[in-house]
């Protein structure tokens, strides 16, 4: 009977544990909306479900909301304000700091905007966001929204993973570009061809030994040269004055990296960047 009692107790404990887990555990992101909000209807149904699954998977794995929102109009707001408010008032974000990142696309003025919150401000520095945006804006411009958003999601995954090591991607160390096989091979071959042309050119040159002599230096009688006139007359001078170029490099090298932040209407601190596509 003891064993039966013990077994019941074990089952009960497991049940309590699971209840607690589902009440207070993983879904601490109390968002009202899904992580993909395609109001502008830019994606097909299959693209939508695939992207949605990906965003959910990444978000749950990192305990960090990765959100993509498309809208037709910013309703008179700036992209930054709209994105921050969308994030704040729809309850995105994990934990007390409401960790997450949101990418907003507005079709009216073709705006894109990234808003980062909490741990997102640490993981996605200004330089990091610039790096990410460079890699999805072209796809947005040509209208390949699915590819742009997938790219964004994949990069977010990589950035959060890197930030978890304690050293987020920043101005002085951005993700390494993939090795461009074709480009490197082409450049190597072109350089090699030029060097080979020079080397074989020298070898060809060895075959040719007949050259005209343009001078008669060998036949100048030694010591026969007498300089009888030597005038160096100063005539006039020109002075050219050119304004120095403005030096921007000092401000650039002074950029310490990291993220610049601002407060949204709800008082939450956000990082972010925006642009047109």
């Amino acid at each position, binding site marked *: 009977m003891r064993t039966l009692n013990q077994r019941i107790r074990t089952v009960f404990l497991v049940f309590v544990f699971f209840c607690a887990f589902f009440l207070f555990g993983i879904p601490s992101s109390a968002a009202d909306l899904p992580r993909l909000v395609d109001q502008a209807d830019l994606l097909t149904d299959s693209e939508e479900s695939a992207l949605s699954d990906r965003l959910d998977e990444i978000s749950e794995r990192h305990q960090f909301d990765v959100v993509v929102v498309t809208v037709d109009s910013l309703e008179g707001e700036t992209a930054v304000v709209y994105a921050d408010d969308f994030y704040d008032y729809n309850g995105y974000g994990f934990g007390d700091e409401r960790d997450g990142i949101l990418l907003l696309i507005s079709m009216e003025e073709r705006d894109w905007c990234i808003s980062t919150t909490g741990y997102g401000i640490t993981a996605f520095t200004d330089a990091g966001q610039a790096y990410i945006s460079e890699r999805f804006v072209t796809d947005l411009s040509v209208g390949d929204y699915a590819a742009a958003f997938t790219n964004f999601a994949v990069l977010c995954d990589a950035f959060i993973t890197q930030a978890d090591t304690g050293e987020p991607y920043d101005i002085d160390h951005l993700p390494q570009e993939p090795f461009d096989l074709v480009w490197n091979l082409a450049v190597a071959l072109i350089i090699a061809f030029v060097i*080979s042309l020079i080397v074989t050119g020298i070898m060809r040159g060895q075959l040719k030994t007949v050259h005209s002599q343009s001078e008669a230096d060998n036949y100048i009688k030694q010591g026969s040269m007498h300089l009888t006139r030597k005038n160096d007359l100063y005539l006039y001078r020109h002075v050219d004055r050119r304004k120095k170029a403005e030096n921007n490099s000092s401000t650039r090298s002074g950029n310490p990296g990291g993220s610049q932040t601002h407060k949204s209407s709800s008082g939450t601190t956000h990082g972010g960047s925006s642009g047109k596509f």
Partner: protein
Amino acid sequence: MAAIQEYKCPCCGGAIAFDSTIQKMKCPYCDTEFKMETLAGYDSELRNDQADDMRWEMASGEAWQADELGGINAYVCQSCGGEIACDENTAATACPFCGNPVVLMGQFSGELRPDFVIPFKIDKRAAKEALRKHYEGKRLLPKVFKDQNHINEIKGVYVPFWLFDTAADVQMRYKATKVRTWSDSKYDYTETKFYAVGRGGKLRFEHVPVDGSAKMPDDLMESIEPFDFSEVVDFQTAYLAGYLADKYDVDAERSVERANERIRRSAEDAFSETVKGYTTVTKETGSIQLQNGKVSYALFPVWLLSTTWNGQNYLFAMNGQTGRMVGDLPLDKAAYKKWLFGLTGILGMALFAVSYLFWLL
């Protein structure tokens, strides 16, 4: 107040006038200012300009003596028309220029007897050895060319040269600049100072050779220069024994141009080298006056080998005094392609590997 003499602006060439307010000469076109002395000096510099005088005395050589020509046979080539001579004990069978058979023409005749001759110093064996060395280390030379044995056909030929001796009086004028740069907090400055530089003097040239044979390519003969004139001897027919001799068919008058060209270049270079300390030096004018120009006629020793390969004639020449060997060789196109693309492949892979290593770091 206008200047009595009209001067030209050294900067732009416009007529220049005295500006009484600044008490200087000022160009109304380009606004450059000059001191009066500067312009006077520049003007006297310009007056040094003269036309060239590169004339020569053409009284060279003397006529043959009656008994001298008796011992010399003349041959003419059936193919290229080349005319060669050798003493009666030497039989010439093939033309040294094109390799075709020659026929005996009879008694040698010529307008002029050479003044000088430099005897052969290097024998046939050494000449063959030099030719073998000439083939060596040349990877793009067709193998067949190396292996085919033409070396026995090498011939010693006395080639006629005109020798030009002269003293050159050279007057040169240059425009030179000195450039200085400095900066303050707002501007970068570049100051260019312009100078008129004059140089004049004398220079002596001795025995500038010009090949007097039309069949001998000029560039081939210039390539085996220089000949050492200190070993020259007065011409004797005895030196022809065992060798062929070519008769001049380009006379001194026509060779003068080539000699003048070379003398002018050397003279100008020699004086340009004395213009020092400037950022840029541009020659404005230069004139050369030749004095006591004298021409003499000499025979110089040359080992010649004419080879026909793939329908093309290759002529090699060696200085019979110094041993300097020249002659363009044919190119093995297949070998060239192999080297070019082989090297490209190997180097390309190496560079590609290096670029990958750099990417990994």
